[in-house]
């Protein structure tokens, strides 16, 4: 079994598992009339998921590129920034400030320019400030969106 086929088997297995959980919930929850439609969908869902799983197991289905370990490693830091923003920063230090920081970090993380290059830092700072200024004008001033302010901004 190639790594690629293993990946497909695992992903189809997860989808099948999700389908199984949904089917279980749909058929055990009450009131029955509110769950009639979920039950109908669940039957379709689990049959398709089972078929898909069997296909992956037997190596028939090979659509999609699969996950590349190098790519995955590249994603992790960016994803971490997003998650920190989501669960922590936005509510604690404020939506605008934390998205500014997130923007800056992501820009820096994935910018090919070296970290000791003063000019590159200048550019990062200017782009970040300009972009966030546009965001502020659009969302806060024009659309009057009240973002969570946290302790700062």
């Amino acid at each position: 079994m190639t790594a690629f086929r293993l990946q497909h088997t695992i992903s189809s297995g997860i989808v099948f598992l999700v389908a199984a959980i949904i089917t279980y919930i749909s058929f055990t929850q009450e009131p029955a009339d509110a769950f009639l439609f979920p039950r109908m969908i669940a039957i379709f869902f689990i049959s398709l998921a089972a078929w898909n799983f069997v296909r992956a197991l037997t190596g028939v289905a090979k659509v999609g590129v699969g996950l590349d370990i190098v790519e995955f490693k590249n994603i992790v830091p960016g994803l971490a920034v997003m998650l920190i923003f989501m669960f922590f920063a936005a509510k604690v230090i404020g939506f605008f400030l934390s998205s500014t920081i997130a923007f800056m970090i992501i820009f820096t993380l994935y910018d090919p320019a070296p970290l000791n290059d003063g000019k590159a830092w200048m550019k990062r700072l200017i782009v970040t400030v300009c972009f966030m200024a546009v965001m502020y004008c659009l969302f806060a001033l024009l659309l009057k969106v009240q973002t969570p302010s946290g302790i700062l901004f």
Partner: protein
Amino acid sequence: MEFLSYFGGVFEPTAFLLLLGGTIGGLILGATPGLSPTMAVALLIPFTFHLSPTQGLILLGAAYTSTVAGGAVSAILLKIPGAPANIATALDGNAMAKNGEGARALHLSFLSSGIGGVIGVLLLIFLTPILAQWALAFGPSHLFWMAILGVTVIGSLDSKSFVKGLLSGCIGLWLSMIGFDDNLGAQRFIFSDALTGGINIIAALIGLFAIPQVLDMFAKGRSNSVIEAIEVPKQKFMDSLKEISRSGRSLSIGTVFGSIIGLIPGVGGQIAGLVAYDQAKKFSPEKEKFGTGHPEGLIAAESANNAMVGPSLVPLLTLSIPGSPTAAVLLGGLIIHGIFPGSDLFDNHPEVAWTFINSMLIGQILMVIFGIYTATWAARIARAPVPIMAAAVMVLALFGAYSVQQSMGDVYVMLSLGVGMFFLEKFGFSAAPLVLGLILGPIAESNFTTGSLIANAQNGPVEYFMTGTLNIFLIVLVLASVFYSFWSNMMHGKAAKSEGATS
């Protein structure tokens, strides 16, 4: 021809300025992620308090038309569909922008929007009385079959694998059932507090399309994130015009499907673009090019979602029934001024009704002019360096998702769906059928529930759902669509096998 005599009203200085402002403002608001046409029009309602009814409606009408078209801008350049109407636009439009054809994609998108839009408004002008009856003919059973018909295109929509397309659709249908059940008020599948309100469609759209894209940009890493230097040819307006004039097939498919679907209350413009895209693909000799930056799909989708604007107002203007969420907001805007749509509107305030309709006609043209004018400039956005693009799309997605209902819950939902979609896409699942399931789920379910309740009071569900000309016609369409999908899937499989290719 009554409408011609009211054209003067559109060109009065104040009215025309409002039309101009509404169009430009609408384009900007439409291009803002998270701001659907419905929200944009609702935001403008307070401004109309200070205007006369005619002026207010001109502003709202101009905003409605141009936000729908403006949504294409962020769909094409950032792959963030502004509204469900622009999902299909994102599929090929963004691929074109990535190939360095952003300006061409924007030109074609605005031109086909304009053409579809003008035809839609002309339908509104000339066929309103006939169309009004047609709109009323759709009861719960018919809407249920319409939704099922929509579900049948799921398998063939932007997916390399038929089974995985259907599976993506099932995931979408299931996601649509999270939260409170709309008819009976029961709680379903609420795993977290962020889900009590259900999954907001706009937030979900942003997550499903924008986040996988951001993660793909992350995946390139910093070492090889040097921008691929594609020579960007300058897009001449005349070339775009020539191309559009040669795209009769996609334009007519888009316009026909857009106007028919736009007319049906409750289904509305949300799926017009996707259905037109799917049909254009089925009728095209170059099916395999769809999804890789093929203009045909873009033209069909954009002409459909603007063609739907005119007809979607028919039930509102004639019967005072809002056929779409945006029409509901427009109704509010009218009522505030003491004008009740219906026969009252055309009999007692013809100048309001016709000036409004005419302004939408002129608004379409203004929208094309401004859209084309800014296209070359806007298309540069898609050429921004990868790290800036990744950070910008991410922050836009966060703001967009938050601003829909000013709720952090929507941000959580957006990010979780987006990250999940990224991994699913790696294994051949796709976002478009998932979103279609998410949109059609509630339509199918609520009409099924309402229909069943009515059927129980009458002669049972079999008679209610299965008899009557319109029901049978729709069932035949559903069966034909299912059969076609299986057949083309089998043919495709055979062809692939005979070539010895593994798909």
